[in-house]
């Protein structure tokens, strides 16, 4: 510029000093607060980023909390289910012992008392609490114990709705099993159908639990097997179709029909009837009740013995089904736990990433800030010094 007025001269100097001072103080504010962004408008994108990251972190922390609670519940469930499995195995041992032909009514009654004790123990386990004020297997009705025992009859007062928790983004994990699913919905017999001997049978023949030879060929119908003195007449109740099977000369008679195979042991009397029915569901408690009743019945004659054998075959098969079922449930809770492991690990990694990102955006790099402070200090000093030098120069000093 051609000329500069005195006013402008001083004003310019003041502005420079004010500007350097402002910068110096801003650096000082950063260092003393430890924050890179003093007000959000210093770095709007960074501030918004930090806000998003904090939200994300908060969600991850919550997922971790949910995962912890889920693990707590699943662990307890797994423990109880494995104890239930043990109880069922003990039941199986007692039942196997009961098959001993040398045992009399007294021994069987003793076994029945053992089974009673096992039933009580199973009810106790089924009513386990979940450590958070509710019950493990009550579904959503967990204000009261889900299983109510009346003698050997056990009723379920919970419901089938399962409880879930959000353990990762949009991932709901089932954390509680319903007692319904665990102990009530067990397939009796061989899993597909149950066999039975009529209570009024007089012969000495008994029916085994049967087996499935071809699942595709199963008709789903119920059947009756009547012995008319000479042969077995198998009637399919759905369409009244009949098949006649001759008893084998010596040894057991095997009937194979519609994908099923049943074996009849012993000699039947005319008019004896056996039934085959689709399995449906039977609770473990009902199965145990059936076993206890069976063991408490005195066996007076061969017919009673035969009826015992038929019931025995079915009960044993039902208990085996129950043991399998509980093993499956235990495996399910095991796999839920390992799924949880996966989520926990991912959560951990993502939390670290988020924290690192937040720190990059929000936290101050002290080394850089400290050197910046020194630089600005120098600039400020330069501004002050140069101002004082220039302001001393005037023509009036020489007049």
């Amino acid at each position, binding site marked *: *510029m*051609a*000329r*500069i*007025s*005195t*006013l*402008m001269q001083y004003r*310019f100097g003041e*502005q420079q000093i004010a500007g350097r001072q402002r910068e110096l103080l801003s650096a000082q504010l950063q260092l003393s607060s430890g924050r890179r962004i003093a*007000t*959000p*408008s210093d770095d*709007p*994108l960074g*501030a*918004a*980023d*930090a*806000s*998003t990251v*904090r*939200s994300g972190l*908060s*969600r991850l*922390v*919550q997922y971790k*909390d*949910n995962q912890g*609670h889920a693990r707590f519940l699943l662990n307890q469930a797994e423990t109880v289910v494995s104890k239930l499995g043990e109880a069922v195995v003990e039941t199986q041992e007692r039942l196997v012992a009961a098959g001993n032909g040398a045992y009399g009514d007294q021994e069987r009654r003793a076994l029945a008392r053992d089974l009673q004790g096992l039933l009580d123990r199973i009810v106790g386990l089924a009513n386990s609490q979940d450590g*958070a*004020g*509710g019950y493990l297997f*009550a*579904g*959503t*009705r*967990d*204000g009261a114990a889900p299983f109510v025992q009346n003698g050997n009859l056990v009723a379920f007062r919970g*419901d*089938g*709705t399962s*409880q*879930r*928790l*959000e353990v990762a983004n*949009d991932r709901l994990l089932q954390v509680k099993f319903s007692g*319904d699913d665990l102990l*009530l*919905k067990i397939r009796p017999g061989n899993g597909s159908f149950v066999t039975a001997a009529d209570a009024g049978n007089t012969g000495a023949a008994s029916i085994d639990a049967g087996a499935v030879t071809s699942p595709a060929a199963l008709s*789903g119908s119920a059947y009756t097997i009547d012995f008319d003195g000479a042969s077995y007449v198998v009637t399919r109740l759905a369409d009244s179709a009949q098949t006649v099977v001759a008893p084998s000369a010596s040894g057991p008679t095997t009937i194979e029909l519609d994908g099923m195979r049943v074996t009849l042991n012993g000699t039947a009397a005319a008019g004896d009837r056996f039934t085959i029915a*689709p399995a*449906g*569901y*039977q*609770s473990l408690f009902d199965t145990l009740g059936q076993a206890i009743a069976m063991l408490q019945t005195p066996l007076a004659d061969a017919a009673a013995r035969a009826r015992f054998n038929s019931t025995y075959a079915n009960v044993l098969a039902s208990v085996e089904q129950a043991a399998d079922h509980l093993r499956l449930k235990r495996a399910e809770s095991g796999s839920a736990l390992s799924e949880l492991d996966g989520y926990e690990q991912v959560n951990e990694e993502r939390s670290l990433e988020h924290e690192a990102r937040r720190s990059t955006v929000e936290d101050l790099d002290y080394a850089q800030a400290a050197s910046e402070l020194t630089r600005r200090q120098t600039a400020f000093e330069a501004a002050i010094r140069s101002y004082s030098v220039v302001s001393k120069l*005037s*023509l*009036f000093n020489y*007049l």
Partner: protein
Amino acid sequence: MSSGLSSIGTSALNAAYMALRTVSNNIANANTPGYTRQITVLRPEVGSFVGGSYIGQGVAVADVRRVYSEFLTQQAHQATSQAEGAGTRHTQLQQVTNLFADPTTGIGTAVDTFFRAVQDLTQRPSDPAARQALLSAARLMSGRFNDVGDRLQEMRIGVDRQLRLEIDTVNQTTKEIADLNTKISQAIGAGNTPNDLLDMRDAAIRRLSESVGVSTVEQIDGAVNVFLSGGKPLVVGGSANALSWAPDPLDPKSANVGLKVGTRVLPIDAAAAGGGRIGGMLQFREVDLPEIENQLGRLAASLTGLANAQHRLGDDRNGAPGGDLFTPTSGLAFPASDNGNPATSIAVTISDPAKLVASDYRVDYSGGQYRLTRLADGATWTQAASTFSQDGLTITLASTPPADGDRFVVQPLRNASRDMAVAIHDIGRVAAAAPVVASVPVGNAGAVRVEEISVTSPRTAEATLKRPATLTFTGPSSYSISDGVTTVSGTYTEGQPIDFNGWRLTLRGTPAANDTVAIGANVGGVGDNRNALRLAQLGGALLADGTPLSNGFSVVVATLDSKTRSAELLSTAQSSIRDSALAAESEMGGVNLDEEASRLMQYQQQYLAAAKIIATAKVVFDEILGMGR
């Protein structure tokens, strides 16, 4: 002869003395703001023709004038307006930004805490502590929204107060300018250049330019007419128009700046003001502040609306329907105060919180058609019906038709943040459970199981929703549902939802013929967390522009911060331009003490030399007189 010498000497003495006085005046006013330096313009006296040649007659003072550039001064006026306007707007925006700034006590944290409390509830739905924590977190969150909304409102009131003060200042200044115009015209008419009055008037116009954008036009008689940058007249000759503070016909709760010209009051908005502090504040108040309030309001209204919609679908601890968790926000809608038909009223409700757009709206009626304008981006919809369903809002006009040209204002989101409140105080009323359950009885032969049963929105009446129903499979892929009142049948596809009586059932697995599923009311399900789970997942619900709800606050903050940053940059740039303009002005008309010091020397010497001429003239005269003796 010596009289010639004498008179030349005297003229030189006078001229030097005048010049010294001018220089002294400059030195005295070196630091006076608005002072333009003056220079003495000397001209030689006309010579007289004596003895065959022109002999000079000395020196005369032609003029004492200001070293002034109208162009530079006007440029400086404009630059000042722009800088003040940008600076004021930036200051206001900075205040708002600081309000939203602290990450640990702000709204973002409160929203996060609320969702975490909901998640905790999913872990322990029957625990009174978890329920209480949810209500506390909800109250904390709405309290934060209230705080920020209230503070924004306070800022608006503060800006209004400042505007009124500025208007008073402007009115005083324009009167001053008008008075000076009169005095200056008189002086110029008498043939003088009233330098000091001219400086005073320039200073007054400069002060005015800090408040509003101005442009000036000089008249022949020396008066200066001053206009607002937008073109409206402030000072014409010796009379000034006053700014006023008048109620806004489009918003009865607020008033606005107006200019009284004759009997009319012209409304002055940011564009009309053209800059200055008034321009900056008007822009903040008319554009920036509503935008921020609406963005924040949209977040509040979406949260409230979505949470309420989900909460209504659940059952509380006593099995009663959940109802609203937050008090529903009521949008503002009112007719303009100058409508031809004052009987027509308007109301707005929020029908779909997920579709809300952060904007105010206006409804105009003309030629039998209603036109809805979204003020944020100018989109319009025209129709003949008097009810609009747009952007998640339902806008209804009653007592129609209005008069032609009538206008209505709709502000659906402005108060949402201030009005947010928790509607539930009893922990038993928190609806964590779902109202219906589905179960598979023990007698089923097939392997069908219930994956999920939920309730569709809006919630059906209790009597229907909770009526026990049975779904019976008539075959492996067909079913019929009956509740004793209605029967429907359908085809079964695994995983496909089945809707009936207001609930939605999803089944998995393969059924056998005659298998059933029983659906009924949820009785005693205190451990049911299904509705709480849905509430917790609301964080991922998407708003109209695709942002997830839990990130909603970050978006508000990002918009605000960008706005503030660009306002800051603009302010810095305008300040820099102003400084250049002022420097240029000063370069021409500012006093430089060293320059004046050298001039002081220069004219002092001339004075001494001129005195010498007079002394010489006296010697010559004495000599002539001596000759006669």
